[in-house]
């Protein structure tokens, strides 16, 4: 039985222009993710994992194809959206976790997690921020600035922030890439279980086979030489 797709990617392509040379990073890629399901994106360095996630976040413009995201009341199509509406989409409906530099250095831990609520004028979610941080074992670090936190703690704060709005889509680009095995497991567990519980679609790029194995489906991006394999 297949659930209806929350996120569908249809025959998208993306290239970069480096001087006169054209680098085709993604060609004719299609896949879809249902609500509450997770996809892990793997592949060698330079295979286009980050590029894909940036496309899904609307940070980059598509060359071809389309991405659609199912929202509560409508379906959002990336192809026709301008930069402004893609920015608004990110702000309201997408959570993002990077490998590092996830936190605004001049905001405290609590302020960092509350930031999406503030940006969306959702005062009702502000108290949720401290609950979430307490759940993640950071209840006593609320008023610290990020620079005094360990890498694992910083990633947990980042996950808390990405989850705060309960967005339909959460993107994570090597969220455990900087962590030791134990912390890595902790953060990955938080991500996968939270998304499953809250019916969030998760797309996670990683080099770790352990983390990749935790996903419902796996998407392997090969080197650009074999574009035909780049589909599920």
């Amino acid at each position: 039985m297949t659930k209806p797709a929350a996120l569908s990617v249809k025959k998208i392509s993306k290239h970069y222009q480096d001087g006169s040379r054209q680098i085709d990073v993604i060609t004719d890629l299609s896949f879809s993710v249902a609500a509450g399901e997770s996809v892990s994106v793997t592949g060698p360095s330079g295979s286009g994992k980050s590029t894909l996630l940036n496309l899904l976040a609307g940070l980059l413009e598509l060359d071809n194809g389309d991405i659609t995201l199912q929202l509560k009341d409508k379906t959002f199509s990336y192809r026709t959206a301008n930069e402004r509406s893609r920015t608004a989409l990110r702000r309201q409906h997408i959570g993002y976790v990077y490998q590092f530099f996830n936190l605004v250095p001049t905001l405290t831990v609590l302020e960092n997690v509350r930031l999406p609520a503030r940006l969306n004028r959702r005062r009702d979610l502000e108290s949720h921020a401290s609950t979430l941080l307490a759940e993640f074992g950071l209840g006593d670090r609320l008023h610290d600035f990020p620079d005094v936190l360990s890498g694992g703690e910083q990633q947990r704060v980042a996950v808390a922030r990405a989850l705060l709005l309960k967005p339909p889509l959460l993107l994570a680009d090597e969220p455990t890439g900087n962590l030791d095995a134990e912390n890595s497991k902790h953060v990955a567990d938080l991500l996968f279980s939270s998304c499953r519980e809250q019916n969030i679609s998760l797309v996670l790029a990683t080099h770790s086979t352990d983390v990749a194995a935790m996903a419902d489906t796996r998407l392997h991006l090969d080197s650009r030489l074999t574009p035909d394999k780049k589909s599920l």
Partner: protein
Amino acid sequence: MIALALLRFLARTPWSTAMALIGMALGVTSIVSVHLVSSSVSSRLDGLVPGPLAEYSHYLHRDKLNSAAYFTLRRSWRAGALPAVKQLSPFVDETTTLEGQSVRVLGADLLANPPSASTNTAAEQFSMNGAWVDQSLEGQLSIPVNGIIDAPKGTLLADIATAHDLLGWRADQLSYIGLALSDPFAGTIETAEKLLPGFGAGFPSAKPNLDLSPDWQLVSTAEQYPAREFGKSILFNISALGMLALLVAWLLIYQVAVSWLRRLWPVFDRLHVLGVEWQQLRLYFLFSIGLVATLAAALGLVAGWWLARWLLEMAVPGQEINLKLDSWVVFKAVGSAVAVCLLGGAWAFHQSQQTPGRRSLLVIITLVLLGGATWCVFQPQTGLAGGFFAIAALSLAASQMIAPLLIQLKQWASMIGGSYLLRIGAREALWHPGELSVAIAGLSLAIATAIGVALMVDSFRVDFSQMLDHRLKYDLIAQGDATALNELAHTNEPLTLASRVQVYRNTDIRVNGLSMELNTTRMDAFESSRYGYGASLATNNILLSEQAGKALRLSVGDTLAVSGETMTVSGLFSAFGDLKPRLIVDQGSPLAATIATELQIDSVAFTSDQPDALAASLREQFPALELRLQSDIRRVALKTFDQTFAITTVLITIALLVAAISVYIAVTTMRLNRQTGRQLLNTLGVNRAEQLLMNIALGTGLGLVAIIIALPLGILFGWILCNVINPRAFGWTIELQLSAEALLRSCTWGMLAAIAAGILQGGGREEGAFGER
């Protein structure tokens, strides 16, 4: 290979590379333009002293000076009695009326030194009995003219004998003797003056101790030419400003060097890991920054020349402007750029390799500077140079305080509230003391300068307009044609429209050998109050202008002998802008009677309910008179005042601009090196307008930090200008007015400069600190 790597890196980041060049060129531009403007004003002031007198530093006066006294003095000089005197020469110097023109006749020993005329007439016309005149007298006199000289309006130079004939003097009568005194500091002062035009006036010229009989009165050029001195002192105020602009520019250049290093550092770091020695890398760095500095200096010289020209055209429209890029200004510009770059760069390079520490040395230096400044402020004998030093020391000390202040403020950063985006922006201003403190120091200095000068000018203006209020008690003033004035003063017809008629007479007079102006008029209580004196002036009392008080070293209660009459000084009055020291006595005093024949009517003033009607009727009766309404005089006087100080506004604008660029460069570099979360915010969906808001918050934060330091510093500058520099320069005090408007105006401009730097930052997004991958 290394050079190639660096070149590629620079070519890949053209925006930042261009900004470094432009920033540094702007620093040099400000140095050059401030220098040129000051030196142009300075040379115009020097023009007030006629060429033949330029080489004399002092003058000897005595009552009834004649050639016998001169030769006696010369004999004792030849015998070695006056070792400090290098040269001495007799002069005749008197203003007279020749062929209907008021002419200053200057007689000198021209056989010894013939004058250098800017244009000589044909050689066959040359006559030892002829004269040299300034431009304004060309073709006006029947006496043969040998050439045109650079001199003040209405000056005629001739040999002493010719001058005697023109003045109708006895053949042995002299005005004074010019002395060239050897001054061990003359060379130093001259160099200082060349480097910082206007600065020379700050050195106290010690009164040399000459072994002379008490009949002789020794007077310095400054005392002999109070107008020039007045101008030089204003210039000195401006050059205090110029020095600060120089400091701000240096900070900018240093900032550019540091930014340059910060940009290259990641490349260097990698190269070092690959085995390239630090020494070699430093050489590459210094070479590249030196190249930028040289290019920037060349650009800045040209731009500075244009800017100075434009400024002068605005400030003194219609005057011929002659700006020269002499070797001094080139030296100053190129020297500033290259030296600050190389030294600052080497220091920054050194710092980058080490963990920071050793603040204690800086603390000690700061304390020593502050101590020195305080001492100079309270020791009048340190002269203008002391006041100057205090300003410089305070500036340096204040710029040392920025980094500790930022560190302190950073600890309280979590207390900054408001919208999250504003928080991010404002806290960012405090977050990177190492990167931003130099730029903030520059901005702070620029704002403090603006505050100090605004306070000084505003206070000066208040005193000036107060003086005008005192003086301009009459509704109408008649001046001009002497016969018409005489008729008017002696008319028996009652002037029905006037409620009061006041006649002023004046004459030039020598007091203790000094040339002064003496006014006589009816000094009743109404008239006395114009000079801030409460009651009518007794016939044995005299009022002195502050300049006269200073020149004669007299204050209220002292006595003074003028033309054989002993008078008591009963008041000093301010007389900004007077050319000569001035004395005032009642027209019924014995002194006025003694010199009655020399007194001439200068003007007649009226109070009236209908000044316009009175003016109209007078104009009809005495068409030769110049009639001026009080309201017009006031307007013209204040306009002249504002024009004089207009140039300071422009100089401050330059300083603020330079500071803003410096902040901009610092912020760009800071973002380049630090992870500031901008990319992250984009991912979180913060849009352009919100990013702009954050940049404004950042600018405001930077501006606020700068103002915290600038406000007290600027008020101190203002206080020093009013209470230290001006009293030491002119002998008058300006009461410091802490006008909220002046403070607000300067702070607002500073804030706008900071915000502009913050917003501009949005344009430099070509190089992210980390990519999106």
